Structure formats: C-alpha cells, structure tokens
C-alpha cells in the first residue's frame, strides 16, 4: 500500500473507532453533566445492550430492531433503578451514588451471566451491512462506514436536542442549577429520571452497535468503562462537545499509536489523560467544578 492509501485507511479506521468510543462514553457524560454523578454501572449497561441486541437480532433477524430493543430494555431498567434507588440519594454525598451504581454493576453482570450463560454470543450481520467498499482499491467494511455515519448523526441529534429543544434547555438548566430549575416549577425529579434512563439507553445503544465487531461477552463491561472514563475526562466532564472531541482524540491516538508504537499504546492513553487533566483540570471543554 502506498503511504496515501495507508493514511486514508488509517483515518477511516480512526473515525470508526472514534464513533464507537463516542457511543461508549456519551451515556457517561450525560449522567455526570446533569447529575454530577459517576455511574459505575455504565460498563454493565453497555454489555446488557450488546446481549439484548444480539438476542433480538437472532430472534427477529432484523439488525434495526436490535438497535431499538437494546436501548429500550436498558431505559426501562434504568428508570426502575432510578425510581427505587437513586431518587432517594440525591440529597446525599457523591460516595452514595458510587456505591449504589457499583452494586448495580455487580448485580447486572451476574444477571446477564445467569440469563445468557458464560459463552460469547454473536449474530450475523445482514448481508446489506456485511459487504465492503473499495477505498483506493483497498477493502473497507461497510459496517464501519455505517458506524461513522451513525456516530455523526447521533452527535448532531444530541447537540441539536440539547441546544435547540425545550427538553434540552431543561436538562442544561437542571445540570447547572437544580434548585433554580425546580423553583421555576419544573419537576427536577422527573428530569433526573429521564436523564438516567436516557443515559442507560445510550450506553445500551453503544453495546448493540459494538456487538457485530466485538461480540457480546462477559468481559465487555469492565474493559469498556475505562475507555469511557478516559474520554469523558479528556473531553470535559458533562460537556457534550468535549465527549465528541475526546472520542476523536483517543480514537486517532489509539489507532495511529497502535500502528506506529504498539508497545507504548497502553500507557500512552493514560499519559494523555494525565497531561490534559494537569493542564486543564476541567478537561478540554469542561467547567472546573
């Protein structure tokens, strides 16, 4: 491959990885941005999305349906959990949320193992998505282009949703000043419930989209959560724009890092995170608390 083709391919690889990482971390930043809470169960919800996605696709044969069923299932679970556990803790310290979401992560991971067993689960992609397209006469999977497209669409959708709609305004207000928002007659409790459910749905959507690449397995949860933390911190906790930038930065750093210096790649991601947090404690686009 000549250098230009190589560079183009690597850029596409990096974009597809960035899209995947964006889906992984979006739910985390939404929860932190609105509720100032770190969700330890984020990885388990991502894994749940992968399993539900694969199960739906195996049963119904439609990949699209799996992309709807997975977020829905997680949203219902998230809503139930928020109503019966989280809603009692808003007056409490951060550590309460840490412990309760840690408990959810443990319980959810074990529940998944009980329901679907220990073996990895997989579903074949529909033919329309498992083809390739030639980029400078080198094969590139269509599914990864779909991933890039979906990532872009979701980014725009979320951005527009947050900036342009009344719900978005409400969410941002609740994140900056919950007491004031409540004083203005909005039921902040319901906003928080909606936010937690939406964040769970986004995590599960990420899982369903990642399943064709990674397959649904029990190790998925604990590996993914670290990447999500890295991205959300680099981009800026609670900043939607920061998460998009963080995903791109880490996606390109990992893709090109793995190519030129795989030896250092593992440590490099964390060194990058340390560098950003030391220079800008709030992350690239975040507000310092």
């Amino acid at each position, binding site marked *: 491959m000549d250098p230009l083709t190589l560079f183009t391919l690597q850029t596409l690889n990096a974009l597809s990885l960035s899209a995947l990482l964006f889906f992984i971390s979006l739910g985390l930043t939404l929860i932190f941005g609105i509720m100032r809470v770190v969700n330890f169960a984020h990885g388990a919800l991502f894994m749940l999305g992968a399993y539900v996605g694969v199960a739906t696709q195996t049963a119904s044969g439609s990949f699209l349906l799996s992309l709807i069923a997975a977020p829905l299932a997680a949203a219902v679970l998230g809503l139930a959990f928020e109503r019966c556990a989280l809603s009692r803790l808003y007056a409490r310290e951060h550590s309460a949320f840490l412990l309760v979401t840690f408990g959810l992560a443990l319980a959810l991971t074990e529940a998944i193992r009980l329901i679907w067993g220990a073996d990895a689960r997989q579903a074949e992609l529909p033919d329309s998505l498992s083809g390739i397209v030639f980029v400078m006469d080198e094969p590139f999977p269509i599914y990864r282009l779909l991933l890039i497209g979906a990532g872009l669409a979701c980014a725009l959708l979320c951005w527009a949703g947050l900036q342009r709609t009344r719900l978005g305004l409400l969410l941002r207000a609740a994140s900056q000043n919950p007491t004031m928002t409540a004083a203005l007659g909005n039921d902040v409790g319901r906003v928080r419930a909606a936010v937690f459910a939406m964040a769970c749905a986004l995590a599960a959507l990420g899982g369903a989209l990642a399943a064709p690449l*990674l397959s649904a397995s029990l190790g998925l949860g604990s590996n993914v959560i670290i990447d999500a933390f890295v991205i959300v911190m680099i981009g800026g906790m609670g900043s939607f724009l920061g998460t998009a930038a963080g995903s791109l930065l880490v996606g390109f750093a990992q893709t090109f890092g793995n190519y030129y210096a*795989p030896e250092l790649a593992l440590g490099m991601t964390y060194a990058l995170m340390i560098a950003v947090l030391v220079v800008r404690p709030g992350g690239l686009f975040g507000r310092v608390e």
Partner: protein
Amino acid sequence: MTQRIARRPLAALLAAPALVGVGTARAQGQPLKIGVPTAMTGTWAALGSQVVRSCRLWQKAMNAEGGLLGRPIEFLFEDTQGTPANCLRKAQEMVERDRVNILLGLMASSEALAVMPKLAEWNALFISSVNGAGSITAESWVPNAFRANTSGPMGARALALWLRNSPQTDFFSLSLDYSWGRSSVETFEGLLRGIGKRSIGNVFAPVGTRDYSSFITRVRQANPQALYIALTGDDGTAFLRQAAQYRLFERMPVVTETVDMLFTRPAGEAAIGLVGGSRYSFAYDIPANNTFVSRFRAEYNDLPDTYDGEQWQACEVLAAAIRKAGSTETPQVVAALRDLELNSIKGPLKIRACDGQAEQQGFVVRVARREGFPYPVPDVISTFTAAEVTPACRASNFT
C-alpha cells in the same frame, strides 16, 4: 467459622442439568475430595464452565463405577474470577479446611504460577488442564506440579510441522502483549526457521484491545503469505470477525496456535478455513474419544470443546495415577504420576518424570462446514507423534 453448608451450587442455567445418578453409587468409603478453584465468573467464565461441566461428567462416570479405590469422587468448585489473589485464597482454604490435596482446573497462567510455589508447603499436587504457558514446566516448575494438557509451544510445534509442506514461506505474527502471546509467537518464529521459512515481522496489541482495525491494516501493509495469530477467547472472536469484514482471509490463510470452538463458534462464517494446532478435537477418530464425545453429547447436548477434552484427560491421568499408587496421599500419587503411561481420549500419553509434562500427540485442525453441525467446526487434518511435538525436558521451547 460458619459451619460448611452442604454445597449445592445454584442450578445456574448454563451448568449441567441436575445430575441424577443413573445407578446408585456403589462406592461407600470416605469421599475423595478434589479441589477445582477456577474462573466461574468474569472474563474467563466461558472456559471455567467447560472445566466444571467436564469434571461433573467424569464424577458421574466414576461414581457409577464405584468411584476410585472404592471412594466416591466429590468435587469442590470455587469461583476465583480468574485472579491470582482469589485463587490463592480459595485453594488455601480447600487444602486447610476441606483436607483437599489434589487441585485441578486452574484457569490463568498467573493463577498457576501463584499456587505452584505453595504446593510443597500444603503437601498438595496440581495437574494443569488449561495453562499453556511454557514456563510452568520449565523455569517455574515445582515437583508437585504436572501438566496433562498440551502446552502452547507444543501447539505451535505441531502447526510448524504441518506447515513444512505448505507453499507459504513469509509469515507475519499477531498476538496480545502478555506473556502467553509473546512466548507463543517466539516459539512459532523459532520453529519457522527450523522448517526453512521465515517471519517477516510481528506485532503485539496492547492487552484489552477491542478494535483491531489498525492491526489489520498493519498486516495488510506487511502483506505476508500467511498470518499466525495467538489469540483466544473474546480477543480471538473480535479479531476474526473484524478481519473477515476487511476480507483479510481472502488475501492470506490464517493459522493459529490453538483452535477453540470457544472463539471460532461466535466468529461464525469468519472462522472457515482457519488452520491451527489443537489441544483437543472432538473429531479425533479413536474409540476412546468417540465414547467420550457420545457420552458428552448425551449429557450436555453440545460438542466437547478444547477445555472439556483437556479437563477430562487430566481427570483420566489422575485416576490412572491413583490406581497405580493404590493411594490418594500426595507423595504416593506424585510418585505414581512420574513416568505414568496411559491411553487417553487423545491417544497414548506419558507423564515425564523430569518436568511433569505429558508427552502426547499433536493435532492440526481446519475449521470447515460439516453437515449435521449448526456452525463451522474444526476437523483433524494431521497428527504428529509425541516425540515430534513435545519439547525437551524442562525447556519451554525448541532449540
């Protein structure tokens, strides 16, 4: 401390359906307790479930025939989640509280390396059925440790021997950056030189890599005639699926050190054509293996995979040693294990006295579609004698 509640593991969906003893166990004597601290949850859960179901099947078979030396077999399964800290604690508790002196089924190499130095102090013995790291029967070897399963280097050796008459000469290697991966690639590259072929490069993906796209591009850039991978479990599945989406296998055949249905089955179509060493294949056509496979399918309605077979073989080795020793005490069983010979489901087998490694045949398999099976399965395409595939005593490699 809490009185030991009779251990009834929850009939988890995946585990075997409740074992209804076919004939009442005629064995009366005091039960022979065997400890199995393995990873039943966490990232290695799939391997752990194979170890557990194979032990249960063997227990049922042995107890139906009156147990060992008249004593019924009782397995103590403990979940270590695949971490050395848990494994040490669970193993120590089994040895000291339940008077267990036989340990089987440890999952990660790091767990085996943590437990082995303690065997002398516990006066216990360990027969490995999963750990492939060369060092277990080399620099880290201890007298009470034995390895009934094929080691990583032995798998690579069988593959290299098969590749002697294959047209490809330029190989590229890909693995994860941890010790099993590195030793597997190192062994394979050494063997390549031995059969007049050469390695044109290798790359080690960081542990925990999810997206292999840039490594696939790296392989394409190197453009070898064949690709050697040392990946298993979720990593193997992820790589095979993603590489297939890049149509990598249309450009070059892929070979691997060990083919497990564990990662070829979820890879589906992407695994077809994969050639590699095999630590155990249900397709190995000898009477002993066929009876085991039919018994396994009758019990679990599933094909026995690599670690089902390896665990069963390890149990067979233990049984032969206990019968030969006429006792279940550690010193006697360890002595009986040295130079023990038996016919197992993988053919003739001999436990070497000097490093506890079981000299056994090497197999090479290819994953292909086969009627009557819902997913592509590995088929044995070549067999090599024990002498050809087993490394020298206490060597983790082939000079």
